């Protein structure tokens, strides 16, 4: 293992209007290693990657690549310098063949005719070495996701890249395909390529990683070698593979670095009525979930906690009638068989979706029109929309959520992220459902507003509503929830009851796969 540093990060800063995404980060990436980057959403790792690959410009600090200052203005510039990215959304064109995809955008051409690329042989060698079942003339749409990834890797490598960034490459792969990808990664490493590997599956780090950098809240909280994390003094005494126990412990350590000290915001015990079971989920499985069992009581706040990709959102999706599932859902003791969102709403569910821009807001409509959308009855008077009621409703919620807007006529698209989120929550609350699901309710919301949203959720529970919160912020979960469902890799690890001084270490252990 060479100690030669390929990327040197010093005091790197990135400021977006109103947000400091990176607050001065320092670390080194060594040549020819697999360097893992971990951190929760919003921790700053993707900002770092975007600066590295030319999608964003830094606002402070320095970044050195091969010893020279490096400030790429575009993705292409970074690519030409030798830094390529393997994006999470696959950037292959389904209706082109392998070969065509490999050469897309850098074809050699004469009079517009595509010539045989010189690099093709090399790319093919790369592909062969990674997956020998891919042929040049295969249309890409018959390939699996993993095979498509191989094509993208080959494409990146063909540009003489020395650093390959892999953004959650295993997110949509089957177990088998993950194995194969790891073999690929190892081969690449042998060829001297530096790999920056982003993953939410911490255990993977111990399989392929050499170093790991942890981000939290725009800061780097640690860069360590993998053996170090696993508890070995140095690489010499370290075995090639670790046993499960070691991995679990090490993962827990990583989670601790990612989450940091959990500020123990006082958990206020709820007035849950544990005699009244509102919802019961029995043996639910689908393509992402295995054997999910839990129940929810009246007036309870149930938290789902797990790292990104653990399957929290998927639980929300099947409950809300979006995804198919096998198994049973009982509401008030009766088995439900709704098949869509409308059915779920009628059954008494309501949800604040995770992606507000895509699934939540009606950007061109004013705030006033957004809020009643899930329950138009609330603004109808004798069947017609009453402007008075609508205004009243909007005012009520805008006050309750302290939405910062010019007035209620403002189009939601022009609001800040936090205020958009408040509008989405208001829209959902207005539904007045018995079971309210909130997926990442305070993501991108400033501290003050966060507190307000928490108070509202607590207030709702006290009114007798049952609430499910999906969150990847542990403080939020421990602050709010009465019971916490800990998820890991599509399964429920454990359901713990919240209390004043809850064992954070234990939680970390479970969500890390222990």
């Amino acid at each position, binding site marked *: 293992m060479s100690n030669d540093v390929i990327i040197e990060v010093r005091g790197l800063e990135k400021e977006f209007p109103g947000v400091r995404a990176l607050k001065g980060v320092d670390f080194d990436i060594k040549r020819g290693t697999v360097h893992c980057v971990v951190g929760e959403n919003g921790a700053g790792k993707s900002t770092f990657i975007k600066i590295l690959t030319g999608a964003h410009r830094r606002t402070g600090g320095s970044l050195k690549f091969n010893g020279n200052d490096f400030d790429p203005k575009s*993705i*292409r510039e970074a690519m030409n310098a030798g830094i390529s990215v393997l*994006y999470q*959304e696959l*950037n*292959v*064109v*389904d*209706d*082109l063949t392998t070969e*065509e*995809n490999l050469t*897309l*955008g*850098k*074809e050699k*051409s004469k009079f*517009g*005719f*595509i010539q045989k690329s010189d690099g093709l042989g090399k790319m093919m060698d790369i592909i062969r070495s990674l997956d020998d079942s891919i042929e040049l003339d295969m249309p890409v*749409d*018959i390939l*699996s*996701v993993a095979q498509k990834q191989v094509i993208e890797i080959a494409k990146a490598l063909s540009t003489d890249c020395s650093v390959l960034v892999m953004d959650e490459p295993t*997110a*949509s792969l*089957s177990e088998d*395909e993950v194995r194969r990808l790891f073999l690929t990664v190892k081969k690449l490493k042998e060829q001297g390529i530096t790999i920056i590997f982003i993953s939410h599956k911490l255990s993977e780090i111990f399989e392929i990683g050499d170093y790991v950098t942890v981000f939290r809240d725009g800061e780097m909280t640690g860069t360590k070698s993998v053996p170090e994390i696993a508890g070995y003094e140095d690489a010499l005494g370290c075995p090639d593979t670790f046993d499960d126990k070691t991995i679990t412990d090490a993962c827990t350590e990583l989670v601790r670095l990612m989450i940091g000290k959990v500020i123990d915001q006082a958990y206020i015990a709820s007035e849950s009525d544990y005699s009244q079971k509102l919802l019961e989920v029995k043996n639910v499985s689908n*393509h*992402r979930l295995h054997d999910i069992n839990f129940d929810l009581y009246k007036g309870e706040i149930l938290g789902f906690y797990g790292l990104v990709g653990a399957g929290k959102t*998927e639980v929300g999706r099947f409950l809300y009638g979006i*995804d198919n599932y096998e198994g049973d859902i009982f509401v008030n003791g009766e088995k439900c068989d709704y098949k869509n969102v409308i059915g779920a709403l009628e059954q008494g569910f309501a949800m604040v979706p995770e992606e507000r821009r895509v699934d939540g807001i009606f950007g061109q409509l004013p705030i006033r029109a957004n809020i009643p959308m899930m329950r138009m009855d609330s603004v109808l008077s004798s069947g017609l929309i009453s402007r008075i009621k609508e205004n009243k409703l909007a005012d009520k919620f805008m006050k309750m959520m302290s939405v910062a807007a010019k007035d209620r006529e403002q189009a939601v698209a022009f609001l800040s992220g936090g205020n958009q989120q408040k509008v989405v929550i208001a829209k959902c609350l207005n539904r007045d459902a018995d079971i309210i699901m909130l997926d990442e309710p305070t993501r991108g919301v400033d501290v003050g507003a966060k507190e307000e949203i928490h108070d509202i959720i607590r207030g709702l529970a006290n009114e007798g509503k049952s609430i499910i919160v999906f969150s990847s912020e542990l403080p939020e979960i421990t602050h709010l929830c009465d019971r916490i469902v800990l998820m890991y890799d599509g399964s429920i690890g454990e359901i713990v009851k919240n209390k004043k001084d809850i064992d954070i270490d234990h939680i970390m252990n479970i969500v890390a796969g222990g």
Partner: protein
Amino acid sequence: MNKLNKERFAFLKQPTFILFLVFVALNVFFALSTPRFFKLSNYMNMVKQSTMIMIVGCGATFLMMTEHLDLSVGSNLALTSIIYTFLVVFGIPGLGIAPLPLLTAGIIVIIIGAVIGVLNGLLVTKFGFESFIATLGMMYIGRGLALAVVGGNSIRSGFPENFGVLGNDKVLGIPYLFIFVIAAIVIFTVLHKKTLLGKHSVAIGGNKNAAFFSGINPKKIVMTLYIITGALAAVAGILTASRLEHGDPRTGTGFEFTVLVAVLLGGTPLSGGKGTIIGTVIGAMIITVLGNGLNAMDILKFWQIVFKGIILIGAIVLHSQMREKRRMTVVNAGTRS
């Protein structure tokens, strides 16, 4: 072994092949129901009659692969056809230019067709028009100009001797029109499969991000395609004038929708990203065979209109079902949700 077999017969599931089967089935049906249909001369006619659809369809297929429409092809065809005729018969009287030779006039109107394409392209790429609206506007303008050039009258005398050669004569027993069609099919299949333009068109419609990250400039491609389609409409205009052996400003009415339907039947969805020239050719032939066969069966014209609608809807439903199935198999192969 099993896998190999699967691959070998994969073409059986190709939409284009299924389309071809539908085409064959139609032919068999008509051949069995009427003795007047299954004749070589009839097929020659049908190819001739679908020439313009195929030629313009080649460009339109490319445009649709990038999610764009061109509704101005019909009036573009009429305008170029009438200007071509005007130039070879009268020249440019205002400038004292004598009647032009066929080739010169041809080149001029192909440039005019391309200019219409440039206007379409500018409106779409530069001013952000929906392609539907931009080309609809150009459709009206082109049609009006075509009529205005000749005051609404046809030109039907004073043609040079070989005016009708391209549209009617044969060389070595093959009609010139066939040569044009085959040339168009070959050229555009090559463009599709072998050139940057074809590949990048597919890429733009198939995955915008991939195209972007690969440094492809979509505006340039779309602009080029509008120009090509405009020029093709002009070629079709010249051929139409030659085939009719007179200049008719009313020609090509409704042509844009015929082309659209042919391209759609050929398996190029409005959402772009895929499509084949051969599919469009089969689509055009299906339209022509259907009209011809139903005529031969002496089916009332109005029923034919009804059938046209049913087949259009049926074909698109079928296409979308096949796409869905394909997507399902991909999802089941163990990928993301």
